[in-house]
C-alpha cells in the first residue's frame, strides 16, 4: 500500500545505482540516522548510551568485518578478535607515540595495519580451503595473543599487561564524555557500514561472492581469486581493527589481551550466524541479539524481584540465551536478516495476501 516500488521511475544511472532506490527506504534511513545521532544522545541516559548502545555499535562493526570475509567471501575465520587486538594495540602505539596525529587518522592507520596482518594470514587461504582456513585463522588468534603478551614494547613497556588508554582528542575537542564517545562511534560505524554496503555490490564484492559460491567456477569465468580472497581478508581486518581500537579507547578504556580472546572471536561468529551471513544489516541484528539479550534477561528477571533466587537467574540467563539461539536457527537458518526481508516482502503486498 504505502510501501511499494511501483511508480518509482528511475531517470538516470545514478538513481538506478542508488543504495536505497525506494524513496521510502531513503527517508526512513535518514530519519533513523538522525534519531540515532541527535535524539538518542539527548534523550537516553548514560547507562543506555555508554554500556548498551556503545558496545552494540562497536561489535556491529566487528561483525561487519567478519561478515565480509566469512559471509561474502566464504572464508571461515576464527581470528576476528585477534585482528581487533592488532587494531587496538596499533592505535595505542600510534596515539601514545605519535601524539601529533589526529585521532581519526590514527584509527584509520590502526585499521590499515590490522588489514595488512589479516591479509598476511589470508595468504594461507590461497593454498588451503574450507575448514583448514579456519584452522589457519585460529593460528592467527593464538599467535597474536602470544605476541601481544610477549613483546612489552607493544604495550608501552608496561609490566602488568594492562594499559589505560589515553583520551582521544582533536582540534580541542575531547572524546571523554559518554555522549561524545557514542556519537564518535556512531559516525565511524555508520560511515563504514555505508562503505561496506557499497563495497559488497561493487565488482570486488561480486568477486567475493563468486569465490564463496564456487571457487573453481569463479576462476574459470575470469575472477581473480587471489585478489578476491586477499582483499576480503584485508578489508575484514580493517573493519575488525577499527572495531578493536574503538572497543579499547571508547568502551572499556583499557588495553589488555584478555578482551580479545578466542571467546570474543566466537561471539562475533555467532553474531553473523544469527544475524545473517552475507548481510550488512544482519551484522547489526546479530550484534543486537548477542549484546542486548543477556542484559534484557537479567533486567527482566529483576522485575520478579526476590521471587527468583539470584543464582538461578545467573544460570537462567545462559539457558534462555542458548534456547533462543537454537530456536532461531531452527526457525530461520538464514538468520534474522532473512526474517526482515520476508517481512519486507509481505509489506509490499499488504493488505493483500499474495
Amino acid at each position: 500500500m504505502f510501501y511499494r516500488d511501483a511508480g518509482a521511475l528511475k531517470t538516470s544511472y545514478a538513481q538506478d545505482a542508488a543504495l536505497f532506490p525506494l524513496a521510502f527506504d531513503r527517508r526512513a534511513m535518514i530519519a533513523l540516522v538522525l534519531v540515532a545521532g541527535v535524539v538518542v544522545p539527548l534523550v537516553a541516559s548514560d547507562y543506555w548510551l555508554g554500556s548498551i548502545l556503545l558496545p552494540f555499535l562497536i561489535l556491529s562493526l566487528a561483525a561487519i568485518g567478519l561478515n565480509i570475509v566469512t559471509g561474502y567471501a566464504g572464508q571461515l575465520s576464527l581470528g576476528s578478535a585477534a585482528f581487533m587486538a592488532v587494531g587496538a594495540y596499533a592505535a595505542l602505539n600510534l596515539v601514545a607515540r605519535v601524539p601529533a596525529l589526529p585521532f581519526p587518522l590514527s584509527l584509520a592507520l590502526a585499521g590499515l595495519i590490522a588489514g595488512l596482518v589479516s591479509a598476511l594470514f589470508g595468504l594461507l587461504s590461497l593454498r588451503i580451503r574450507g575448514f583448514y582456513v579456519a584452522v589457519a585463522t585460529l593460528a592467527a588468534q593464538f599467535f597474536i595473543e602470544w605476541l601481544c603478551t610477549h613483546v612489552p614494547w607493544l604495550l608501552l613497556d608496561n609490566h602488568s599487561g594492562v594499559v589505560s588508554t589515553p583520551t582521544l582528542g582533536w582540534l580541542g575537542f575531547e572524546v571523554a564524555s559518554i555522549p561524545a564517545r557514542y556519537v564518535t562511534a556512531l559516525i565511524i560505524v555508520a560511515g563504514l557500514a555505508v562503505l561496506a554496503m557499497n563495497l559488497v555490490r561493487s565488482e570486488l564484492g561480486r568477486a567475493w561472492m563468486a569465490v564463496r559460491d564456487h571457487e573453481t567456477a569463479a576462476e574459470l569465468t575470469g575472477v581473480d581469486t587471489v585478489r578476491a580472497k586477499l582483499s576480503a581478508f584485508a578489508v575484514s581486518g580493517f573493519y575488525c581493527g577499527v572495531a578493536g581500537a574503538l572497543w579499547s579507547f571508547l568502551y572499556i578504556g583499557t588495553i589488555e589481551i584478555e578482551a580479545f580472546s578466542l571467546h570474543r572471536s566466537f561471539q562475533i561468529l555467532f553474531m553473523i550466524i544469527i544475524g545473517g551471513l552475507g548481510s550488512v544489516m544482519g551484522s547489526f541484528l546479530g550484534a543486537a541479539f548477542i549484546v542486548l539479550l543477556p542484559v534484557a534477561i537479567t533486567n527482566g528477571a529483576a522485575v520478579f524481584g526476590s521471587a527468583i533466587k539470584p543464582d538461578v537467574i545467573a544460570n537462567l540467563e545462559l539457558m534462555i540465551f542458548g534456547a533462543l539461539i537454537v530456536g532461531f536457527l531452527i526457525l530461520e537458518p538464514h538468520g534474522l536478516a532473512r526474517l526482515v526481508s520476508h517481512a519486507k516482502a509481505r509489506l509490499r503486498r499488504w493488505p493483500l495476501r499474495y
Partner: protein
Amino acid sequence: MKLHQVGMLALACAMVAPAPARAEGGTAMEQFMPIAIYRTGPYAPGGSGIYGAYEDYLTLLNQRDGGVNGVKLVPEECETGYQPDRMIECYERQKGKGPTGAAAFTPSGTGGVYALIDRMTADKIPSVTIGYGRTDSSDGRVFPYFFPLISNYWSENTATIRFIGEKEGGMEKLKGKKIANVVMDFAAGRETQPILDAQAKRYGFEVTTFPIAPPGLDQRAVWLQVRQYKPDWVLFRGWGAATPTGLKEAARAGIARDRIIGWWWSGSEEDVTPAGAAAKGFITSQFHATGANYPVFEDIKKYVYAKGLGNVEENRIGSVYYVRGVLHGATITEAMRTAMKKFGNKPLTGDQVRWGLEHLTMTPERIKELGLEGLMPAISVTCADHEGGGAIRFQQWDGEKWVMISDWIKPDHELVRPMIEASAAKYAQEKNITPRDCAKED
C-alpha cells in the same frame, strides 16, 4: 533498507522493554549496596564464594543489628561472568540506585578494576578489592577512589621472600639461592617481576621466570624445564584449573611440593583437592585465616542460613573464598561506620564512604568485637596508603585441609612503597593527574 533498520530497532526495543521501571526511591534510611558477582563461567567457584559471602555478611548485619547504625543495607546482585565489559554494564546500571547511590563497588576481577578507573573516579564511588586489583593504586594520592585493601601482590611477594629467608635461617642465607618463578601468563601473574628483580639484586639470589600460557591445562614442558633449572624454591602463580594441573606435573617431574610456594589465588580448597596426593605439602601465602570456627560464621549460620536467606551452599562457610567475601563486607561496613561518625547516621554517598575508608582503622579489639579475631590482620588506611598495612601468613595443605605454618609476616614496605609511588607517579603523568596533597585533606 529502512525496514531492516526499523526491524532492528523494534527487536532491540522488544528485547529490552522488560527492563525494570521500579521506583528507586525507597525509604530514606536505606543504603544501596551493588554486588558484582560471577556465578557462571570458568571462575564461578571464586565469584560465587567471594561475592555471595559479601552479601551474606550484609544480610547478617540487617538481620542481627538492623543494618549499620540503623541504616538498612540493600544489596543487589549483578552477574558479570568475569568479563570486564559486562562489569561496566553492571556498574553503570547500579551506580545511581538507592537514595544516595552506590556506597562502594567491588569490581570483581583485576581487568574490571582497570576498566572502571576513569568512570568510578568521575562518579566519586570507591572501589574496594581485597587480594587483587591494581597494585599501584595503593598510592591514594593518585587513585583517591581505589582501595586494594589488606595487601597487594608486591607486598605479598616481599613477605614470601621473607618467609623463604626464615626457612633458610636468615635473609643473608638467600645469597646464591635459585628461585624459579612459575607464572600464569596474564597481568596478575606477571605483575611481581619488577619486585622480584629488585629483591634478587638486594639479597643476591637468582630468579628465572617460567610463563604458562592461560588457561594452563598443559604444563608438562614447563615443569621439566623447572626441574632442569634445579631451583631451591619455586614460586607458583596459578589460577583456576592451572593450580592442580601444575601440582600434578610438578609431582611427576619430581619437584618437592613443600618447596613450592603459591600465591593466595592458589590457596583455596578448590585449588588443591583436584590434584589429590600431588598437592600434599604445597604452601601458599594467605592474607587471612580459614575455618568455620569463628564467631562471625556462627552468627551467619544462625541469622542468615537458619532463616533461608543464604546465598551460597552452607557447607562453604569458612572456606577460603567465603572468608574473603566476609572481609569485603566487614571492611566496607566498618568504613561506613567511620564515615557516619562524621556525616551522621544516614545513608552515605560514595564520596563519604571514600572518606570513611581513608580513616578506617580496624584494631585487634574491634576485629574481636566483629567476631573476626584471628581471621584478618589489623589494618589502618590513610589518604596516602590505601593498602592499610596488612600482613601475610603461610599455609600448607596436609592432604585434607590448610594448616597455618607461620605467624603474620610483615611485607617489606620500605622496598614496596617507593616502587608503588614511582609507578603511580608515572600513571599520573600519563593521565595528567595532579596527585592530592594528603596533608590538606581533612
